């Protein structure tokens, strides 16, 4: 009954309690965080079960019915995504226990609290059915993100401030778009807005509203050429923050774009003709640029950050190509990319724990010394490249088929080239880690099992999800895409 909000409430309460525990009993901070995340993930799994059996759930916050009140709308896809976000954050939280508690010393209570809050913001973005509420939750997720990303090496604060400037402009542009839409239709509720737009004659203001709205979201999700903030913010921050946010932020914003395209503007309703074309061009450029810049990096985490930039292009391109196949691919890729980015960053987090620096020159003999972490990393990398039967292959396959149907050849070329570049990128790292011997051989130096287990489980999830792609498409994605989209 209350399942859509129950996923968020433990996180909000947990973040308050964590701060209070920080003042009185420090030893309680970490257990509070774990408890909140476990409760929240239990509720999210329950939510998935409920939505799968009963269909889309609507929850009126405070009992105010839409379109006046704020509603949470959870369909099969968003329920699945919520579960993935929360369980991913739990995996990060368990893996990075030492970093969270030891590295930040007196700040650990605030750090735990911020982690829970930013997760609550992201889950809220996925659940909400109200455009203005979406803006507020975007800012909740972003503001806590700025604070988290500010903790890190000497450059972290400046990169975080840079992200804050760009991110706030993006959010403001989104708000402006919402303002125009409200002015034209008098509604902020997504379902209500669609019914008004059905009979609304397209005019210049409506076109401006939609363009500004999507422009703001693109800035937020780091689509090329608005990606400037992402690599700095994710590679200078602490390993914990990068592992937490890299699988969340860009994927959640891509989901917002897909949600708007499938529910508020279904079948290209009211969308200006040029917008999808521009979006696909930008997506193609994002894939090329991200891959090219990833190629120049010698630091593994920085390289992954640029790969995230390229992956944003996959999702935006798929969403805007405008056929069922590509949309399915984009939605699959959101799930796949979240899972494989999580695998890679968790593995990198473990490597950083043992080796310190993540420069390529410092990573010789990793396969010998950290076999389990590296095995998980290889699975994540293979999925990123697109090797069957891993999840990344199937989402790419749907995207390629969709692009072929729509005759978007440049986008297809970009997809294939980026896969090839990923092969080179990852094998350059594997070559160093497998063949080169370190000067003083450390022997087996694997991290503790509690740090290996999460990354191993997520990596196995990539295989399991890949093998059940057909099931995921039928049960979770097919019902969400509007029937008008062929």
């Amino acid at each position, binding site marked *: 009954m209350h399942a859509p909000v129950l996923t968020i409430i433990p996180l909000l309460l947990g973040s308050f309690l964590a701060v209070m525990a920080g003042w009185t009993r420090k030893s309680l901070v970490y257990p509070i965080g774990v408890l909140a995340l476990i409760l929240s993930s239990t509720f999210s799994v329950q939510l998935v079960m409920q939505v799968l059996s009963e269909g889309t759930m609507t929850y009126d916050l405070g009992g105010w019915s839409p379109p006046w009140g704020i509603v949470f709308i959870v369909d099969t896809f968003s329920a699945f995504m919520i579960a993935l976000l929360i369980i991913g954050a739990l995996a990060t939280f368990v893996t990075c226990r030492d970093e969270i508690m030891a590295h930040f010393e007196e700040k650990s209570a605030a750090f735990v609290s911020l982690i829970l809050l930013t997760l609550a913001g992201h889950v809220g973005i996925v659940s909400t059915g109200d455009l203005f509420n979406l803006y507020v939750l975007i800012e909740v997720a972003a503001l806590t993100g700025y604070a988290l990303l500010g903790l890190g090496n000497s450059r972290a*604060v400046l990169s975080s401030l840079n992200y*804050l*400037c760009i991110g*706030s402009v993006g959010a403001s542009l989104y*708000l*402006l778009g919402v303002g125009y839409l409200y002015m034209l239709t008098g509604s902020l509720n997504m379902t209500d807005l669609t019914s008004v737009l059905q009979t609304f004659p397209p005019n210049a203001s409506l076109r401006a509203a939609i363009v500004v709205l999507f422009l703001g979201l693109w800035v937020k999700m780091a689509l090329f050429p608005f990606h400037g903030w992402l690599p700095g913010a994710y590679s200078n921050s602490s390993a914990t923050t990068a592992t937490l946010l890299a699988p969340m932020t860009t994927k959640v914003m891509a989901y917002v774009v897909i949600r708007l395209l499938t529910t508020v503007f279904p079948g290209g309703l009211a969308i200006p003709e040029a917008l999808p074309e521009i979006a696909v061009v930008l997506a193609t450029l994002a894939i090329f640029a991200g891959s090219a810049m990833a190629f120049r990096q010698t630091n593994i985490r920085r390289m992954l950050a640029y790969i995230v930039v390229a992956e944003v292009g996959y999702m935006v391109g798929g969403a805007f190509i405008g056929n069922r196949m590509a949309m399915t691919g984009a939605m699959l890729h959101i799930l796949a990319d979240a899972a494989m980015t999580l695998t890679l960053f968790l593995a990198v987090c473990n490597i950083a724990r043992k080796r310190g620096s993540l420069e390529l020159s410092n990573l010789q003999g990793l396969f010998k010394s950290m076999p389990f972490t590296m095995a998980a990393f290889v699975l994540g990398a293979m999925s990123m490249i697109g090797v069957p039967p891993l999840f990344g292959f199937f989402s790419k396959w749907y995207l390629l088929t969709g692009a072929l149907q729509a005759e978007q050849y440049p986008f297809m070329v970009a997809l294939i080239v980026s896969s090839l570049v990923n092969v080179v990128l990852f094998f350059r790292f594997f070559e160093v880690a497998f063949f080169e011997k370190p000067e003083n051989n450390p022997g087996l130096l694997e991290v503790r099992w509690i740090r290996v287990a999460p990354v191993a489980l997520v990596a196995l999830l990539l295989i399991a999800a890949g093998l059940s792609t057909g099931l995921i498409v039928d049960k979770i994605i097919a019902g969400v895409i509007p029937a008008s989209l062929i």
Partner: protein
Amino acid sequence: MLDIFAQFTAKYNYWAYIVIMMVGLFAMIAKRNLIKKMIGLSIFQTSIMLFYVAIGAKKGATIPILLSGTDPHHIDATMYVNPLPHVLMLTAIVVGVATLGVALALILRIYEKHGTLEEDEIISQIRSS
């Protein structure tokens, strides 16, 4: 020519918000001092708040509190300004204040580390280290 002028005066509130918005954006892009950048960000956000407040206004309307003696079942909506955009902007103001707070906290950390607020000097310090 007169046409453009008429359009300008008829919708002067929108022109005003666009001008303010561009002033803010210019400050964010062109100024190299971090505090000035933040002032630009604030101006940028404020322009959007003004836009929202403007769309709630109506000519000859009063504040959205029922006049005495009005039948609550027959309310003439044109007599009252629309309060919803104003309420939305209360939230947006809170968000703006929080953004500025986080930004100033980050700037404080930068100042402690580098002893300056000029972006060029900070970048050259980072490059040389």
